[in-house]
């Protein structure tokens, strides 16, 4: 047996020995059995939570709406949705968490929905939705984002209450029932574990429903020092008088309106190269050469027409079709997500270290959502590598110029709860792979991203040089 075969055999045996050496799986599983089932995170929520508190509360509510599949078939929760659908007007006040903030919501069946986020009585954000179009207004920046509607408004209202837990195992607790104007409001409670490692339920989700099963109050309680303490709450009133001016999308003369749909359509109409696979279409929309040192490439992945025909038009209710990562060398500096769309910006170095006129990118694409389920169920591959041949144009300026232009566009287009989610970031290899990211791109983020990018590139170069230097044989450590 040659030394290479012997080495491979020794390595395999070492792997076996490491597995035999301890009881990691048993100890891990012992703890896993006491942990809650992991869930897909509300990623956009977390990204957006980095913005100001009341604004975050408002945006997050919108994003949560957008991220979840509508369900209104269960008995209690179905009744809640039905109650909203049958109402002419609704007024809701939600006080999330311990923030000094409040989210107030008005709904008029004929006019639409208004959500207002306030912090210490100062309006931080306004969201309007007439069922076809939505507007989000930020009074601080004067920015208005005009985009498609968030979806079915009564369903949205029901989601905003956070009463979806009524879909799950709730119990009627008569001790907390209330008599209001001669009507009995029943208290429904769901217990759950909130803290990591909690052995027993330390959080209660509570809702009061009237005799028609319309929701009127909602509350979250947490166990603090053995006592249940109210954490957040909401009140819902039906068929109250609402000033129709509240639904007018007039935000003053000084506002700066960005029509997200048009901006996206304009961007996606650009096409440099295209390839298809798994029912998805991968397109290169832009290739920008910076100082003959590399290229910035903007790609997007969308469902093909055949996929849309099979699974329906992308919408907030039908949003995930696929995503992708660059298999070629490159750094991802921004990402944008909208229903049926993932677009991302990459800095690609020259393949052989020298400027070239053409290059082939290699991109791994992944089917998601219903498309993934179908491919998975029929035992077909749900991921694939696609090549894309691109022609490199002449230099368009410095890296800073090139990135700043793209980030300015992202600044304008991002931020709305039901528009699109955009994030700019770069992996900071020096900081052990941590990502430096900004959910609301601005000038500071351009500077920081470029700084981290250069630092990382320098680090990679230094590491490569160190690697080359380590060519001498090294003696065994023991």
């Amino acid at each position, binding site marked *: 047996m040659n030394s290479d075969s012997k080495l491979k055999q020794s390595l395999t045996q070492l*792997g076996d020995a*490491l597995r035999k*050496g*301890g*009881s990691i799986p048993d100890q*891990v*599983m012992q703890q896993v059995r006491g942990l809650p089932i992991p869930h897909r995170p509300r990623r956009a929520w977390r990204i957006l939570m980095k913005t100001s508190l009341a604004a975050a509360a408002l945006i997050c509510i919108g994003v949560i709406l957008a991220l979840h599949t509508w369900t209104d078939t269960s008995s209690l929760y179905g009744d809640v949705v039905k109650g909203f659908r049958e109402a002419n007007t609704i007024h809701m006040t939600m006080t999330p968490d311990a923030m000094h903030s409040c989210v107030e919501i008005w709904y008029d069946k004929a006019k639409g929905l208004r959500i207002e986020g306030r912090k210490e009585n100062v309006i931080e954000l306004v969201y309007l939705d007439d069922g076809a179009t939505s507007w989000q207004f930020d009074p601080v920046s004067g920015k208005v984002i005009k985009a498609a509607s968030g979806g079915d408004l009564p369903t949205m209202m029901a989601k905003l209450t956070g009463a979806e837990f009524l879909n799950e195992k709730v119990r009627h607790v008569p001790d907390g029932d209330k008599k209001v104007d001669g009507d009995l409001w029943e208290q429904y409670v769901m217990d759950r574990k909130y803290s990591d490692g909690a052995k027993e339920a330390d959080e209660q989700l509570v809702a009061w429903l009237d005799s028609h099963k319309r929701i009127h109050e909602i509350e979250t309680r947490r166990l603090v020092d053995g006592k249940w303490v109210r954490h957040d709450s909401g009140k819902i009133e039906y068929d109250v008088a609402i000033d129709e001016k509240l639904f007018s999308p007039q935000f003053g003369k000084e506002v700066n309106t960005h029509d997200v749909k048009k901006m996206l359509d304009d961007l996606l109409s650009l096409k440099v190269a295209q390839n298809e696979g798994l029912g998805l279409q991968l397109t290169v929309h832009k290739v920008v050469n910076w100082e003959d040192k590399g290229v910035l490439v903007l790609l997007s992945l969308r469902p093909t027409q055949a996929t849309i025909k099979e699974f329906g038009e992308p919408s907030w209710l039908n949003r995930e079709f696929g995503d992708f990562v660059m298999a070629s060398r490159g750094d991802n500096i921004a990402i944008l997500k909208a229903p049926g769309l993932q677009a991302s910006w990459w800095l690609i170095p020259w393949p052989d270290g020298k400027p070239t006129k053409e290059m082939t990118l290699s991109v791994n694409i992944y089917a998601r959502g219903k498309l993934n389920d179908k491919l998975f169920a029929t035992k077909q591959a749900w991921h694939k590598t696609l090549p894309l041949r691109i022609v490199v144009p002449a230099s368009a300026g410095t890296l800073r110029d090139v990135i700043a232009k793209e980030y300015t566009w992202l600044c304008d287009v991002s931020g709305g709860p039901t528009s699109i989610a955009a994030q700019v970031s770069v992996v900071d290899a020096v900081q052990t792979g941590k990502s430096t990211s900004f959910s609301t791109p601005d000038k500071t983020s351009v500077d920081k991203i470029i700084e981290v990018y250069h630092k990382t590139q320098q680090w990679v170069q230094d590491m490569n040089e160190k690697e080359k230097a380590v060519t001498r044989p090294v003696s*065994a450590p*023991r």
Partner: protein
Amino acid sequence: MQSDDELIRSVLAGCRESFDPLVRRYEASVLASAAAVLGDLEAARDASQEAFLVAYRKLGSLRRPEAFGWWVGRIAKRQALSHLRQCKREPQGPHVEEPALPAGGDGRQALSEDHDRLLAAVARLPEQDRAVLTMRYFDGLKLEEIAKATGKGIGTISKQLSRSHKRLREMLGDNP
């Protein structure tokens, strides 16, 4: 054998027990990742356990299930670094200084001297090369599976493995 993807879907759908085969599948490479940082096999076992628990909690955020092994290996490295900081001691280099507890001590078995020596050499490989090597030999993944997990080409993986073999032979004095 169920794929990582199937097992992860199963966990997310509510079956915690499906996490067990994932832990068993990647136990050795995760342990090697932690040992490379900590230089101590027992401490590496603790860090590995924590890494799997972190991975379980964050499983829903894993976008590419085929990259689970690579991902949990990275978590193990971070956990190991965190252990080092907690212990307020300087890294002792990627050297497995002490063997594990003697056989029968608490049910855990020590590595043989040869294996200890080989693990120390594996720990001295550059991180990327070590990850590929441990996925290949400790986790038993095929080249295509490693390529998918790391997002690299099969040719690149093959070259990384050859380079690692060469380095290991050099470190071990051509006597694995």
